[in-house]
């Protein structure tokens, strides 16, 4: 029977990144997916008729254009330009298969209106997200964050990165609630306010990452691939295949075989494949994951950009939890025909959040209201699953479900954590873009 170092179940983004990295590290990898397409939960669905069928909605109107022109992300998310995922793309050279555009707008919702997240000094000065005195204090705070070096106590200003809470840091700089909200949710990308009681290092690093990402391309810190997010897993599939690994789509997985509490094989359609390690998305191993919440997502097809976004063809809007008296943020994101994911003149938006009541659609109403008029809506509620254990004993490593955010920050952290547990070492690579200046064209 065939023997592999690693078997991967599911071709979601996380699984494909890990599969690609394992194969580049010389592992023999077999990758299975029960779907006929790549991407799993993070697929881009094409043609449009397939999306309607999936949600059991009658066939699309002719005005939607050619079905094959659509590539609709089931879970749309943007990449941080200076984030680890982009560095993985560069390191593995998967960028040769992909094209990206800078996301054109980044907004935060406050007081019933959307506000541009300030980019430049002038925009900070003009922004109505904070008052005049807060602006001066915010600049001092930002200077502190950007100069912060974990290994250099002189940059810590008497704050301990591992013990001082983020709330204490904000208090130290005397920042008001409005600035704290904007900073924690739109810059550090926290989904709720639990971070305030946590040590400040994570949030400081998140704000630095945001700033470095913004500095890359100036318009916003986010990137999005042409033809949709489903291109990312497929880029890593190509990488993996070039290293000699095998991909089987449309394969039912019958059983994961353990020997002495450790994974030994996978049985699929009567065939048995042996392995030393197993990586899987949550859906293949329901008995090894636990539910920690539910996510509501509403995919919307539009024929117009979102109002008050300066006609942005792509944007993110974060609605901080406190604005709606909720526990979690609501996220809105928009992409369009300019990314080859919709037919001419059409846009795809998504509103998502954690479910907190028995009426999920009502919970995203504030986000949906920003999108009106909506041509078509596709609502889904899915469980947020996390692995029941770290996999070290069983050598079965399960990724977490995708959270409601419209950025890939937490998902990238999950990939890094999985990589650490699977390989026993940290993923690290020098960003090729930070090499010598001669790389300029």
């Amino acid at each position, binding site marked *: 029977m065939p023997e592999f170092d690693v078997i991967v179940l599911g071709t979601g983004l996380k699984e494909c990144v890990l599969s690609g990295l394992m194969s580049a590290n010389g592992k023999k990898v077999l990758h299975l997916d029960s779907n006929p397409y790549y991407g799993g939960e993070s697929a881009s669905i094409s043609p449009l008729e397939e999306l309607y069928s999936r949600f059991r909605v009658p066939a699309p109107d002719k005005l939607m254009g050619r079905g094959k022109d659509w590539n609709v992300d089931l879970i749309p998310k943007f990449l941080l330009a200076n984030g680890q995922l982009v560095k993985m793309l*560069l390191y593995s050279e998967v960028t*040769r298969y992909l094209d990206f555009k800078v996301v054109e707008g980044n907004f935060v919702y406050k007081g019933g209106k959307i506000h541009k997240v300030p980019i430049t000094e002038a925009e900070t000065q003009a922004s109505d997200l904070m008052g005049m005195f807060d602006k001066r204090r915010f600049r001092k705070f930002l200077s502190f964050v950007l100069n912060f070096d974990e290994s250099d106590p002189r940059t810590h200003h008497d704050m301990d990165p591992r013990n001082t809470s983020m709330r204490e840091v904000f208090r130290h700089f005397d920042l008001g609630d409005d600035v704290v909200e904007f900073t924690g949710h739109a810059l550090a990308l926290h989904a709720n306010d639990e971070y305030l009681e946590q040590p400040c290092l994570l949030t400081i690093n998140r704000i630095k990452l945001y700033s470095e990402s913004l500095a890359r391309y100036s318009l916003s810190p986010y990137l999005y691939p*042409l033809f949709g997010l489903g291109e990312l897993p497929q880029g890593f*599939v*190509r990488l993996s295949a*070039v290293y*000699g690994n095998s991909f089987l789509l449309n394969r039912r997985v019958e059983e994961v075989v353990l020997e002495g509490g450790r994974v030994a094989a996978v049985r699929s359609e009567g065939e048995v494949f042996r392995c030393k390690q197993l990586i899987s998305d949550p859906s293949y191993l329901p008995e090894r994951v636990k539910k920690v919440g539910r996510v509501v997502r509403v995919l919307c097809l539009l024929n117009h950009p979102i109002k008050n976004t300066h006609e942005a063809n792509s944007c993110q809007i974060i609605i901080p939890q406190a604005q709606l008296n909720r526990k979690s943020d609501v996220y809105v994101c928009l992409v369009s025909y300019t990314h080859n994911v919709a037919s001419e003149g059409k846009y795809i938006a998504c509103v998502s959040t954690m479910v907190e009541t028995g009426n999920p659609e009502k919970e995203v109403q504030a986000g949906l209201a920003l999108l009106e008029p909506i041509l078509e809506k596709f609502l889904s509620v899915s469980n947020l699953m996390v692995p029941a254990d770290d996999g070290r004993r069983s050598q079965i490593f399960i990724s977490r479900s995708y959270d409601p955010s419209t950025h890939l920050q937490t998902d990238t952290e999950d990939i890094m954590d999985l990589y650490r547990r699977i390989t026993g070492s940290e993923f690290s690579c020098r960003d090729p873009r930070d090499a010598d200046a001669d790389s300029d064209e």
Partner: protein
Amino acid sequence: MSSKSSLLKVILLGDGGVGKSSLMNRYVTNKFDAHLFHTIGVEFLNKDLEVDGRTVTLQIWDTAGQERFRSLRTPFYRGSDCCLLTFSVDDSQSFHNLVNWKKEFIYYADVKEPESFPFVVLGNKLDVSERQVSSEEAQEWCMESGGYPYFETSAKDATNVAVAFEEAVRRVLSLEDRHEHLIPTDTVNLHRKPRSATQCC
């Protein structure tokens, strides 16, 4: 005379084991490796050539073994200018599967005018002694399918390899309404170091 240069994406498509990678390597590097089992490590290869006064760069994409499990999807096919449908003359099943490969290509490459798309058919392994597919049979299928040019090749001894690729290029260039691919102008180059990395916020 100024010659216009363009990049053409060419894919070799057919069952595993018919010799697609060997054909590609023979054409681009003029080498043949009899021990090549499954394709490993090849991305795509580039070859510059001049056809009828036109200089073009062929970017020949390899399937990287994914055709064995029929796990190729749109990103591999997208943007192809030409498709070389390949079978082995000593394997009749690989010949009968051409119709499926053509169908798969048209679907995943999103070919808008399948009738005029430049397919070229290669019957490889001409050097082997026991044929299972006759020339007449293959010619007939090519004629019925769309008048595709047919070449019997041997990657091993280089028979007809170069002329097959050149005919493929000729077919692409002869398309009257051939339009350059719409290249998005505002994609970002992830490799480029920003000119002025000014800190913002």
